C-alpha cells in the first residue's frame, strides 16, 4: 500500500482523531464547573507502521483511550480530611448553639440570677419581717430554679435534635450505600465494553457525600468494584450488595447478613454522625451532668442552712419533699448507697441520705399565744437523736409521737414522705439546731425541693405561706423573733463559701468520671459557661485549620483533575488547526489523484 491511497487513509484517521480531541475538549469545557468532574484527555497514538519495499511507513493516528486525570491517593486523603471537616462543622454549629443557651450577656442568665438570689437574702436580712422582701426571695428563688430547668430542658432538646439528626443521617447513609452498590453494578457492566469515566465520577461524588456522614475505609478491585467498610471494619457496600444501618435507642446498629446485628456506635469516630455522637455522649452529657451537680449542691447547701432556721410563723403542718423508700431501714447505713435503692439495698432510699450524720435536732411546740409548751421533759423542747447507721424514719416518727404529749403527730405518708402536723389548731411547731442534716434530707423546712437541674423548685410549702421562709432562728429559749435575720445572713454568706461540687467528664465507650471540686456555687457556674466558650473556641480553631488543609488538598487535586479553560481553549485551537491541516491533506491527495488521472 502506498501513494495517495495511504495519504487519504492517514488524512481520514487524522480528521476523525482531531474531531475526537475536539469532542473531549468540548466535554471538559462543558463540565468546567461540574462538581466531582475529572478532566479527561484523549490519548493519541501513532498507528503501527507498515514496511513496504524495505521502507517503514507511518500509517496515521488512532485514539486508544480517553483517560481521566485522577490521583486516587490524593483523593483518599482529601476525603479523609473532608470527613473530619464535616464533623468539625457540625460540632462548631452545635457548640455555638450551646453558647447561645448559656449566654451570659443578659439579665436572665444563670450568673445574673445567682447574683439576684444572694442579694434578695441580703434584702430580707435588712427587713426580715417585710412581706415584699419575703415575696422577692420566693420569686427570685423560683426564677433561679426555672432557669436551671429551662437550661436543662434546652440541653435535653439539643440531645433530642441530635438523635433525630442521627436517625436521618443513618437513613441518608443507607440511601448512599444503596446507590454505591448500584453504581458498582453499572460500572462493571460498562467497563466490559469501554470506559465508565463519568459514572466513576458520579460514584466518587456519592462516596464523598457518604464520607461526610461517617468515617469509612474503601478500596477498589481490578474490576472497578468499590468496597466500603466502616471505621470499625463492618462492610457497608460489597459489589452490588448493601448492608444497612439503623438507629436503635441511642445506638447505631449494623445489620449483617442473616440476623446478625452489631452496635457500632463507639467505633464511629468521624463525620457528621461521629461528631453528633461526640456532642451527645460527651459534650451535652457533661454539661447536663455538671448543671445537675451545680443544682444539686445549690439545693443541698441552701436547704441545709434553711432547715436550721425558722420563718416568722411556726408550722401547723409540714410534709417532707424527699421520698423514703424504706422507712424501716437505717437512714444512712455504712457503705455506698444506691439511688434509687434496689430491693436488696438496706437503706432508707432518701436521695440525700449520704449527707445524714450522727447528731440531733430540736423540736419546739407553741400554744395559741405563741408560748413554748413543755412537752413533759426537763427541757421544754424535744431533742431527737439521729444515729445515722441505725436510726430509721419509723424510729423518728415513733419518738416524736411518744414524746410530744399529744401536741403533734408524725407519720410517713402512704406515698413515703415524712410528715408532721399539729394535733389541733392551737399548736404550732418549729425546728432548730439540726446537727444531723436529717431535716434537709427529709425535705422538711427546706427552701428548695428537687434533686437536680431538671426538677429543682422552690419548696411548694413556701408558696402558700411566705412567712415560713427561714430568715431567723429559734433561740435557746424557743423564742421566734420577727427581726431575727441570723439565718438570712447564713444563706447570704453561702455566696462566699467554697462548697463541694462534682465535675464530670465523659468519653464515648468509657465510664464517666468525676472529680470533686471545691468552689463557690457562682464560680462553678462561671466556669461552666467559660468551658462552653473554650470548647467552642477550640473547635472553631480546629475547623479553621482543617479547612486550610482541605483547601490546599483541593487545590492540588484540582490542579491534577480539574479543568483549566485556558488549557482547554488552547487545546481546542490546537485540534482545530490539526483538523484543518488534515482536511488540507485530503485536498492534497485529491489533487494528486487528479494529476494522475489527467495523464493520458
Amino acid at each position, binding site marked *: 500500500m502506498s501513494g495517495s491511497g495511504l495519504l487519504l487513509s492517514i488524512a481520514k484517521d487524522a480528521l476523525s482523531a482531531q474531531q475526537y480531541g475536539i469532542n473531549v475538549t468540548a466535554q471538559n469545557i462543558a463540565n468546567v464547573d461540574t462538581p466531582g468532574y475529572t478532566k479527561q484527555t484523549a490519548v493519541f497514538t501513532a498507528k503501527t507502521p507498515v514496511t513496504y519495499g524495505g521502507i517503514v511507513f507511518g500509517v496515521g493516528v488512532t485514539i486508544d483511550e480517553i483517560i481521566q486525570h485522577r490521583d486516587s491517593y490524593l483523593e483518599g486523603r482529601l476525603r479523609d480530611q473532608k470527613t473530619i471537616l464535616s464533623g468539625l462543622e457540625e460540632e462548631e454549629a452545635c457548640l455555638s448553639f450551646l453558647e447561645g443557651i448559656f449566654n451570659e450577656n443578659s439579665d436572665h442568665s444563670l*450568673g445574673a440570677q445567682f447574683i439576684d438570689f*444572694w442579694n434578695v437574702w441580703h*434584702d430580707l436580712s435588712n427587713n426580715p419581717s*417585710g412581706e415584699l422582701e419575703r415575696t422577692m426571695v420566693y420569686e427570685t428563688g423560683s426564677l433561679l430554679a426555672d432557669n436551671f430547668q429551662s437550661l436543662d430542658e434546652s440541653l435535653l432538646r439539643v440531645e433530642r435534635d441530635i438523635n433525630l439528626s442521627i436517625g436521618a443521617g443513618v437513613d441518608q447513609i443507607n440511601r448512599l450505600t444503596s446507590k454505591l452498590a448500584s453504581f458498582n453494578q453499572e460500572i462493571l457492566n460498562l467497563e466490559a465494553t469501554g470506559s465508565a469515566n463519568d459514572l466513576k465520577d458520579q460514584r466518587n461524588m456519592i462516596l464523598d457525600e457518604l464520607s461526610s456522614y461517617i468515617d469509612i475505609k474503601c478500596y477498589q478491585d481490578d474490576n472497578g468494584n468499590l468496597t466500603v467498610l466502616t471505621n470499625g471494619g463492618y462492610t457497608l457496600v460489597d459489589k452490588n450488595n448493601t448492608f444497612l444501618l439503623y438507629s436503635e435507642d441511642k445506638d447505631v446498629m449494623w445489620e449483617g447478613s442473616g440476623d446478625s446485628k452489631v452496635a457500632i456506635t463507639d467505633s464511629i469516630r468521624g463525620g457528621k454522625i461521629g461528631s453528633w455522637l461526640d456532642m451527645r455522649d460527651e459534650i451535652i452529657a457533661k454539661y447536663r451532668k455538671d448543671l445537675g451537680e451545680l443544682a444539686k449542691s445549690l439545693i443541698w447547701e441552701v436547704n441545709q442552712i434553711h432547715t436550721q432556721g425558722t420563718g416568722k410563723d411556726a408550722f401547723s403542718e409540714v410534709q417532707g419533699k424527699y421520698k423514703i423508700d424504706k422507712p424501716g431501714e437505717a437512714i444512712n447505713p455504712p457503705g455506698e448507697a444506691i439511688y434509687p435503692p434496689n430491693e436488696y439495698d438496706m437503706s432508707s432510699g432518701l436521695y440525700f441520705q449520704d449527707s445524714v450524720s450522727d447528731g440531733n435536732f430540736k423540736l419546739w411546740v407553741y400554744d395559741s399565744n405563741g408560748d413554748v409548751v413543755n412537752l413533759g421533759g426537763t427541757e421544754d423542747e424535744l431533742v431527737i437523736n439521729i444515729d445515722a447507721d441505725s436510726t430509721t424514719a419509723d424510729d423518728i416518727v415513733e419518738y416524736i409521737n411518744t414524746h410530744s404529749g399529744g401536741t403533734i403527730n408524725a407519720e410517713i405518708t402512704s406515698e413515703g414522705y415524712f410528715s408532721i402536723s399539729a394535733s389541733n389548731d392551737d399548736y404550732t411547731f418549729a425546728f432548730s439546731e439540726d446537727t444531723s442534716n436529717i431535716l434537709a434530707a427529709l425535705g422538711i423546712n427546706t427552701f428548695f425541693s428537687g434533686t437536680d437541674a431538671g426538677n429543682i423548685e422552690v419548696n411548694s410549702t413556701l408558696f402558700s405561706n411566705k412567712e415560713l421562709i427561714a430568715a431567723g432562728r429559734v433561740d435557746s429559749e424557743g423564742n421566734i423573733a420577727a427581726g431575727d435575720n441570723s439565718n438570712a445572713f447564713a444563706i447570704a454568706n453561702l455566696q462566699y463559701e467554697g462548697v463541694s461540687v462534682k465535675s464530670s467528664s465523659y468519653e464515648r465507650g468509657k465510664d464517666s468520671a468525676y472529680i470533686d471540686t471545691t468552689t463557690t456555687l457562682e464560680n462553678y457556674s462561671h466556669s461552666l459557661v467559660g468551658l462552653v*466558650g473554650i470548647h*467552642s473556641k477550640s473547635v472553631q480553631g480546629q475547623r479553621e485549620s482543617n479547612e486550610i488543609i482541605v483547601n490546599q488538598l*483541593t487545590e492540588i487535586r*484540582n490542579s491534577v483533575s480539574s479543568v483549566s479553560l485556558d488549557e482547554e481553549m488552547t487545546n481546542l485551537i490546537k485540534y482545530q488547526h490539526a483538523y484543518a491541516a488534515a482536511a488540507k491533506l485530503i485536498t492534497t491527495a485529491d489533487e494528486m489523484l487528479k494529476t494522475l488521472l489527467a495523464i493520458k
Partner: protein
Amino acid sequence: MKISTKTLYDNIITNLNRASTDMIKANEVVSTGKKINRASDDPMGLMSVLDIRSSMANIDQLGRNITAGRLWITVGESSLNQVDEFLYQAKAVCIDIKDEEKTGLARENAADAVDEYLKQILSFANAKVGDSYIFAGTKTDTKPFFLDESDPEVKVKYKGNANPFSVKVGIDTDVAVGRNGEEVFGVFGENWDYDNIFKTLIDVKQHIMDNNKDEIEMSIEKIESHLKAVRSVISDATVKITQFDIKEKIIKDLDFAYDNKRSLLEDADINEAVVKLKIKELAYQSALSASASVMDLSIMNYL
C-alpha cells in the same frame, strides 16, 4: 502548579468570605462596644468578667445594706438625742425642786412636767424604722415599752429581747444597728425593783409630790447615770456612722476598681476598634477589586 479554572474561582470565593467575615467581626465589636460578644470570643476573659460582675453586684448590695443600716442608726440617734434632752429637763426640774422650797402647786406642776417628759421618752423609746421597732432587739414587730400606771406592781415592761437587730456590711462583718432596749433604758424585770429610766421618772414624780428631798437627790444621781448610758449609746451610734462612711467610701473605690478591670476585659477600645474596622473594610475592598480584575482575565479575550 497548574491552576485550574475551578481553583481560581474557589480561591476568590474563599478569600472574599474570609475578608467579609473579618469585617463583620470588626463591625460587631464597634457596634456593640464589646470585645466579648460570645463565650468563645475570649472564654478566660469572660470567666473573669463574670467573677467581677458578681463581686460588683455583691459590694453594691453591701452598699444598700449600709444605707438600710444608716437609716436605723440615724433614726435611733435622733430619738436618743430627744431622750437625752428630756432626761436633762427632768434633771433640771429635780434640781430646781431640791434647791428651793416650792409651794404645793409648783410641785404639782413640776410633777406634771416630769410626767410629760416620761411620756415623751416612752414614745421615743418606741421609735420605729418602717414597721420595725429600733429598741426592741430582734423582736422588731413588738412594741418594746409598754406603760400601765394602773398596774400596782410593774408599771413599764420591756417586751423586746437582748439581741440587737443588725445588718451585713461585709463578708464577715455584721453591724448592730438596732438596740437591746435594756442597754439604753436600764434593766426591766418581773418585778419593779430594777433600775431603769421609767422607774426613776415615775418615782421622781412621787418624790416631788411628797417633797422628799433626799430621794430627789438620789434620783438626780440616777438620772445622771441614765444620761451617761444614753450618751454612750449616742456616741456609739456616731462611731458607727463614721464606720459606715468609711465602708461606703471603700465600696465606691472598689466598685470603681472592679469596673475598670471589667471594662479592660470586656469593653472595646472604640478608637482601636474603628481603625480595625476601617482596615478590614479596606482589605475587603481590595479583595473585591483584585478578584474582579482576575476574573476578567481569560484567553478568550485574545482569540
